[in-house]
């Protein structure tokens, strides 16, 4: 594995690079040839339904499990464990020692990454105050609410000031206020030059935060690029309401247009809005409303990953 990986040279601009990662669990292939390139300082999202292979990919990138084949390079190291002091990782399944205090837990998580315990305690006090948890600093974690405990673990992910933060489904289990706080925290860390990778099945978070996304379905990367690129794969959507129900104007809208209530919904034709408007007016459509919408990431996801994957994402696309 290491011999194979030697040809992988981490570009200085890339915080994480993965080439053809494959992971088999007995007969099941969980990840099938995933390749990623995450630029330094970027906020990068892994999108996909549950069971798509996001967590397995992240666990391989973190060195928790080894790939069955393929190579990875994290912060310039082929063995991710060697870069551990510069990485912060929040796993999907959260966990802390219930008898520990938040202060000690954060300091312990920092110490695991090489931060001296005394320094970790000082930073823990500071972080807990910043997140309105100062009063809970010395109470056992078992007395905290789930959201508070999750915040404590998140702070433990940041306490050693990592260069790369990897968050697996960080928004799940958080209320709206804490989700907003987490989004702000991600933006703040990115402004400081920290690379952030997070997985989510909530498209809205990725749409608001990410510069780059990888869409994973059935263990494969089906799209890797910017959110704008993903959206750019689709034409703008036209929503049209007319007074006339029929007439010559109907030839101006594509045959694939669908009805949503009183509206016709269809992709903007190649010629753009002006010829469409002209044809509608001249054809006597009697335009009541006409809206041209830029497609959201959800629409792009549906187009790229397919309806089945989109259905597996549930109603979370409502945030588009």
């Amino acid at each position: 594995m290491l011999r194979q990986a030697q040809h992988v040279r981490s570009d200085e601009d890339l915080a994480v690079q993965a080439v053809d990662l494959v992971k088999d669990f007995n007969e099941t292939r969980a990840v099938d040839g995933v390749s990623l390139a995450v630029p330094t300082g970027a906020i990068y999202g892994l999108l996909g339904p549950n069971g798509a292979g996001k967590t397995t990919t992240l666990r391989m990138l973190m060195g928790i499990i080894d790939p069955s084949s393929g190579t990875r390079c994290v912060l310039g190291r082929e063995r991710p464990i060697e870069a551990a002091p510069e990485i912060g990782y929040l796993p999907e399944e959260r966990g802390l020692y219930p008898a520990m205090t938040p202060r000690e837990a954060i300091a312990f998580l920092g110490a695991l990454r090489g931060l001296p315990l005394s320094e970790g305690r000082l930073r823990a006090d500071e972080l807990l105050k910043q997140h309105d948890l100062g009063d809970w600093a010395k109470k056992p974690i078992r007395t905290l609410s789930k959201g508070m405990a999750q915040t404590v673990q998140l702070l433990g992910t940041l306490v050693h000031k990592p260069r790369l933060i990897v968050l697996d489904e960080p928004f799940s289990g958080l209320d709206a206020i804490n989700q907003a706080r987490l989004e702000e925290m991600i933006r703040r860390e990115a402004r400081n030059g920290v690379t952030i990778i997070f997985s989510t099945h909530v498209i809205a978070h990725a749409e608001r935060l990410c510069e780059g996304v990888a869409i994973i379905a059935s263990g494969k990367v089906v799209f890797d690029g910017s959110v704008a690129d993903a959206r750019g794969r689709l034409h703008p959507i036209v929503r049209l309401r007319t007074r006339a129900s029929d007439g010559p104007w109907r030839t101006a809208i594509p045959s694939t247009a669908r009805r949503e209530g009183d509206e016709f919904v269809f992709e903007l034709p190649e010629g753009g809005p002006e010829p469409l408007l002209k044809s509608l007016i001249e054809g006597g459509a009697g335009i009541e409303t006409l809206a041209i919408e830029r497609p959201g990431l959800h629409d792009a996801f549906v187009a790229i990953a397919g309806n089945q994957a989109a259905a597996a994402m549930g109603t979370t696309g409502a945030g588009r």
Partner: protein
Amino acid sequence: MTRLFRSAFVIARRDFAATVLSKAFIFFLLGPLFPLILGGVFGGIGAKVASQTEQPVVAVVSSASDFQRMLSARERIAHSIPDSLVVHFAHYDPEPDQAAQLKRLLASRNPPVRAVLTGGLDNPRVTGAVTADSDAVGQLRLIVSDARTSAAVPPELPVTETAVSSGSLAKDRALTAQIGQMLLFFLTLLLSGMVMSQLIEEKSNKIIEVIAAAVPIDALFIGKLFAMLAASVAGIIVWISSGALLIQVISTGGVQSLPTPAVGWSGFLALGVIYFALNYLLLGSIFLTIGAQASTVREVQTLSMPVTFAQVVIFGFASTAVGQPNSTEALAAAIFPLSSPMAMLARAAQDPAWWPQLVAIVWQAAWVALILHLGARMFRKTVLKSGPPVKWWKLKRA
């Protein structure tokens, strides 16, 4: 390597604090009291039962002069073997109705009569719940025979005492070896269950993934094992201090009353500490590996019994070194890594040579490192579902 040990230290420090500062640790410290209390209770009951059942009482129906001679003969036998092993006598004068007297005595509950000796020294006859070839009847034959001879005074046998002889030294040192082994066995036995459940906390709290991403699995295993060792050493210091204080209070002599080991007391105690640590680390690393495969406390409990039996078997194997440190079995026990610490401690009590001790320490330490490394690989493979198949002969880094 530095990072490995630094990471192990972080894990060990957390585990040590979590163990020693918990309320459960008080029960751990009280642990040795329970066998002592149980030993005292059952020992007392056993002694009482033994005193009631192991000393057969024989009713002697005879003249007073015959009985006196038989009693003197019994006393002479009781000089050479413990009194409790010699039949006890209760004297009764002959009654006119001998058959009725015999029946009444055999039914007596106070004292509980096992047999009745009638006919005096001239025509002795035994009736009762005994067989002709039993110990009690054999003793009665000797007593009657001795009592019949008038000159029953034992001959003079002058004795010149020496401090030690080869036979006495070997026997005494074997006793020291046995005590050393027993201590090592029981101290390690107390800890095995605790070691097995060490990773359950991380697995059930789901913090294992954070740790696995931050430190090498080897560091996790080393840290956990040494934390438990440190906690147990803390416990042992408390036990030894309490024991020494108790001996000081209630007794004199203490350790000095035990036979001196071949390597001397200071060397023996130093080796005792080292072999305790190595014995714990060897067995602990195996139990930690086994326990790491378990997902629940119930699974760990199920594993506890075979593990305890395995320890008893290993102890039995190691005990072959007591009394015969150069026998084939003893050498095999010294070479087999899991019995080596106990076998070598026994050797230290009986053999003054130091070089085998130093070789054994290096040998055992190498096995600790090997088992820990393989355990970490197995954990990665079976629990984290990662890495290539475990090839025991190919020890490349996990």
